[in-house]
């Protein structure tokens, strides 16, 4: 076979791989949109499930996901940003910094169900918070820390050093320079990081399985110590544990669609914010 033939075939195979990836995403979205869209209407989004969850909507699951994501944000956003500030603005190149970075990478690799175990042992049992929005939110918060930290650090790195030097040269302290010159500019980028982390948290099931998610509650959660319904958990039980699986399949598809749309909107907002931020800096 001539070299040219080899090149043509080789490139074709590579093109095929890329095409395969697009095809896979296409199939996933297509199937869910087609089968889920039929079920979605205002009723579906705003009413609670009825008749043993074979009818009605998924409103409590949407609210539950919202609540637990709020708690996640309250924990992981500040800590994530502060850690990123430390790493980019203050940290040296020594062993401690290496350890912190290694810890971040390893934390991002911990299986979600192990976070669930940790959440049960620490929050549900140890701190006696019981199965609740709080326990689940805190567990998810810890899980999303690496994402928030990494993305916030990226945002800080993009701020040119001249911003810092200029301010220091004028006599400001280090913290003053960071506060007035670096942070305001980096905020959009750091927001990107938070939102990406929250998008991930909103879609996670394993960490909330045993820390607070409930199969069915006839009322909305009243306090942070209540259990809650959640979109990913709702999809899971509709698909596997419901007592009339085939009948509720359309509801499952609808839930999957709402969940995907939610996650995509969050991801898109993060990407748009990041793109505008990059343009501004130019």
């Amino acid at each position, binding site marked *: 076979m001539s070299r040219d033939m080899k090149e043509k075939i080789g490139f074709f195979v590579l093109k095929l791989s890329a095409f395969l990836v697009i095809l896979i995403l296409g199939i996933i979205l297509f199937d869910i949109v087609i089968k889920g869209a039929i079920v979605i209407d205002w009723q579906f989004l705003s009413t609670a499930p009825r008749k043993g969850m074979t009818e009605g909507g998924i409103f409590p699951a949407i609210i539950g996901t919202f609540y637990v994501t709020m708690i996640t944000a309250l924990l992981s956003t500040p800590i994530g940003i502060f850690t990123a500030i430390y790493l980019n603005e203050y940290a040296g190149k020594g062993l401690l910094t290496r350890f912190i970075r290694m810890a971040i990478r390893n934390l991002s690799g911990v299986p979600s169900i192990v976070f669930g175990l940790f959440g049960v042992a620490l929050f549900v049992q140890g701190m006696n918070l019981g199965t609740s929005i709080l326990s689940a939110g805190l567990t998810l918060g810890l899980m999303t820390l690496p994402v928030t930290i990494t993305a916030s650090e990226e945002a800080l790195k993009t701020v040119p050093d001249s911003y810092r030097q200029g301010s220091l040269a004028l006599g400001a302290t280090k913290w003053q320079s960071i506060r007035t010159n670096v942070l305001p500019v980096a905020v959009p980028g750091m927001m990107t990081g938070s939102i990406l982390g929250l998008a991930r948290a909103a879609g996670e099931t394993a960490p909330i399985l045993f820390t607070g998610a409930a199969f069915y509650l006839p009322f*909305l959660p009243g306090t942070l110590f209540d259990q809650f319904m959640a979109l990913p958990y709702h999809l899971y039980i509709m698909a596997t544990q419901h007592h009339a699986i085939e009948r509720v399949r359309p509801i499952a598809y609808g839930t999957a669609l709402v969940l995907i749309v939610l996650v995509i909107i969050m991801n898109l907002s993060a990407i748009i914010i990041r793109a505008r931020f990059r343009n501004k800096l130019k």
Partner: protein
Amino acid sequence: MKKVKFYSIVILIVIISLSLVGCGSGNQQKAIQIKGSDTEVNVVQHLAESYMESSDLKISVTGGGSGTGIAALINNEVDIANSSRDMKESEIENAENNNITPVRFIIAMDGLSIVVNETNSVKELTVEEIGKIFKGEINNWSQLGGSDLPISLYGRQSNSGTYIFFRDKVLKGDYSQDMKRMNGNAQIVESIKADKAGISYVGVGYAVDENNNEVDGLKIVNVAIDENTTAVSPLKAENVKNGSYPLARPLNQYIDGKPEGALLDFIKYELSAEGQNIVVDEGFYPISPEFQEINEKNLGL
């Protein structure tokens, strides 16, 4: 300036959401949590919804398997545990160590059914044969007079009361490791419908449709105590009532201590004529006399 704007928006969102959380149950409604048996979940949900039509009480019913329900009762997380098996000694001990006093009562009778695909020619089996099948000792349908197909086993998982009951009553040994563990009765029914060589066990309520006929696509096998007795069907109420169907069993609920107030009211409803009609509606059978006595004793009615 932008930073101020950003932070104020964030704080606004946080305040709004936290206040929404407070809105949820402004009038501290009374609520009962029921959890456990997948076999019972349909029935109890139906009972709960019916009861809630004329009451302020909020009742939440979820599945997860009898084991899950019992664990939740022991951990003091639910008011009623649905269980299609009896609590083990160790579980009762565990509960008492946790200051929970399990009180048992029965809400219905089940004729645990052996189901196979409708194309399967095998019509009846003895209890011993069933045990051997699920232990993996008999593994081809031809050994039972059927076609030459390896038997495909489906069952529940270890959190299921039905799994435990079936194992202790019929197998008296461990399940074959090749048995596929499904998540609930509904998944089992779906699997049997699709698998010509399949066999499984489900609560009779799941094996029949709204008219109390066998669900399309599967067949209920008649069961005999041994080779010398006639095989009996779980579809006839008397067989379950008089105990001639070997796999008849009570469907339990467990609570902590003697019931009172709203909880007692709901339980009374479950045991009433109206409640028992719902039980029959769902394909199960009303409480047999011997178990009614147990109810009266345990609940102090």
